[in-house]
């Protein structure tokens, strides 16, 4: 399963990168969203998959899945939510002010920086 996941993560990262290199601001944001999904899965895969019960002591299992990556990922999910929404509003405001979401037209013009 880990091997399969490794390739899935690769695909996620690939699509994310391709989206981030595009011109449209919205696509870049979608790309960052994909990127964080990939990163979360990578963290989880690194710790090994499906080893033991969920990390709840109530399960009274012999072994538990590694709780630390899960805690890290939980933090990361919430943070990436905050960042994504910030990005979104940034894009939305940039469109309102400048009338475009094309990155090529959003670049700082000379003498204006």
């Amino acid at each position, binding site marked *: 399963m880990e091997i399969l996941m490794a390739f899935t993560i690769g695909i996620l990262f690939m699509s994310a990168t391709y989206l981030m290199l595009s011109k449209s601001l919205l696509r870049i944001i979608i790309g960052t969203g994909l990127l964080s999904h990939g990163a979360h899965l990578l963290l989880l895969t690194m710790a090994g998959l499906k080893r033991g019960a969920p990390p*709840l002591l*109530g399960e009274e299992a012999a072994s538990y899945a590694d709780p630390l990556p899960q805690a890290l990922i939980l933090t990361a999910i*919430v943070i990436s939510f905050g960042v994504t929404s910030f990005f*979104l*509003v940034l894009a939305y405001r940039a469109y309102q002010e400048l009338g475009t979401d094309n990155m090529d037209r959003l670049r700082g013009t000379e003498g204006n920086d």
Partner: protein
Amino acid sequence: MKINDVILQTATKLVLFVIILFSIHLFFAGHYYPGGGFIGGLMTAAAIVLLLLAFDLKTVAKILPFDFKKVTAIGLLFAVGTGAGALLFDAPFLTHAFTDAYLPLLGKTSLHTAVLFDIGVYLVVIGVTLTIIQTIGESE
């Protein structure tokens, strides 16, 4: 976004309380079972977002007349306050304590200062999510 969607609105009225109750359950269960401040807060926020979708911003603002920025601030205060409280007992910042107590009706309950911290997280998550959604919604 003026949509007169009776089915959604009626369903929302029913489901809303279920979701909120469930989210509170998730929040308190967090120390033992899946759940906790983040999930509880998000679930509550999601319930309110559902309300927003079904009705409109003004109605929701009337039902829930909170300034969600202040909710965030109060949440942060809870979290920092719990952490700083440990300093009063000469323990490092964010040290938690717990004890078992017998409460009326609930019986033997274990009480944690971690819950106070988690309340902070809960409030921050609700506050932040709804600040974001409300601000964007109001901007037109």
